[in-house]
């Protein structure tokens, strides 16, 4: 089945061509109206696309930011330990600056742009969704390590970084993009875990080379071809 998946993009592009041609023909004969402009009242944001360029202007400034001597770096195990499952919202690992304030006035003071935080001896991770300011509706602060009842929950497997299709090819994105479409927030700069830190944060259009992972996909077949 593998070969069918691997030509997903080719198939989509071909279909696009078919549609453009097909539609042009249809438009000549019938109502010349673009099918996408259906009767929606306001444009919906493209959720998994919205964040791609969100912080791209910061990318260049991250290029030469390297941890200095004595500045510890983050690694993936610590990154995953904050989450109940990959993709889950991380818990807050430090005391709160102000227990009562909204995120816009406290959390974002550090987590909007990141940087070295001497108090925590760490680089500050950057939020991929700074537009959401009720931070603590998703991110909670564990008071202790106690347990009410043990759990038998087993989280989803962590994403494995796939190899490129051929040596040197850019790897595909191995995780979902919901709430995480802003690549640079997690993959750029010294706060990014070493294992997933990009070597080239200055190239802002990440998804021109990195496609979303290998979705199950059917083969492209040419109808009526030999």
């Amino acid at each position, binding site marked *: *089945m593998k070969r*069918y998946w691997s030509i997903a993009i080719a*198939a989509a592009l071909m*279909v696009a061509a*078919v*549609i453009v041609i*097909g*539609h042009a*023909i*249809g438009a000549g004969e*019938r*109502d010349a*109206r673009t*099918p*996408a402009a*259906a*009767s*929606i009242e306001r444009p*919906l944001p493209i959720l998994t696309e919205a964040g791609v360029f969100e912080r791209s202007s910061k990318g260049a400034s991250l290029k030469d930011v390297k941890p200095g001597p004595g500045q510890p770096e983050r690694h993936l195990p610590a990154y995953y330990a904050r989450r109940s499952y990959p993709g889950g919202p991380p818990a807050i690992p430090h005391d709160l600056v102000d227990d009562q304030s909204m995120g816009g006035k406290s959390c974002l003071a550090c987590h909007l742009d990141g940087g070295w935080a001497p108090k925590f001896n760490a680089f500050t991770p950057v939020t991929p969704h700074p537009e959401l300011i009720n931070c603590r509706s998703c991110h909670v602060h564990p008071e202790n390590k106690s347990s009410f009842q043990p759990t038998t929950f087993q989280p989803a497997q962590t994403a494995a970084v796939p190899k490129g299709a051929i040596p040197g090819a850019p790897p595909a994105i191995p995780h979902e993009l919901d709430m995480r479409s802003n690549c640079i927030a997690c993959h750029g700069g010294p706060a990014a875990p070493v294992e997933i830190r990009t070597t080239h944060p200055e190239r802002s259009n990440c998804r021109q080379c990195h496609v979303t992972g290998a979705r199950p996909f*059917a*083969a*492209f*077949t040419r*109808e009526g071809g*030999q």
Partner: protein
Amino acid sequence: MQTGPVPIKSYIAWPLPGKAAELQSQLLQIPGCQVLPAENRELLLLITDTPTEPAEKLLAAQLEALPHIQCLSLVAGITEEEAA
């Protein structure tokens, strides 16, 4: 050319403006058709599954005759052999 079982095919169907709901209900009345409507645009995905070549031909004729369709684009056709 296909010689084995009839392939399962999927299409993108563009309805005439304002006719998505009608098109959907007409498609659903044709045996072997499954429909997945888009929620925020006027387009439908159509998946067809027919048992025999004559049934496939009949289906093609029925699709051809639908009044509310603007354009029907084939995306994929898969047979069991190919997918194995």
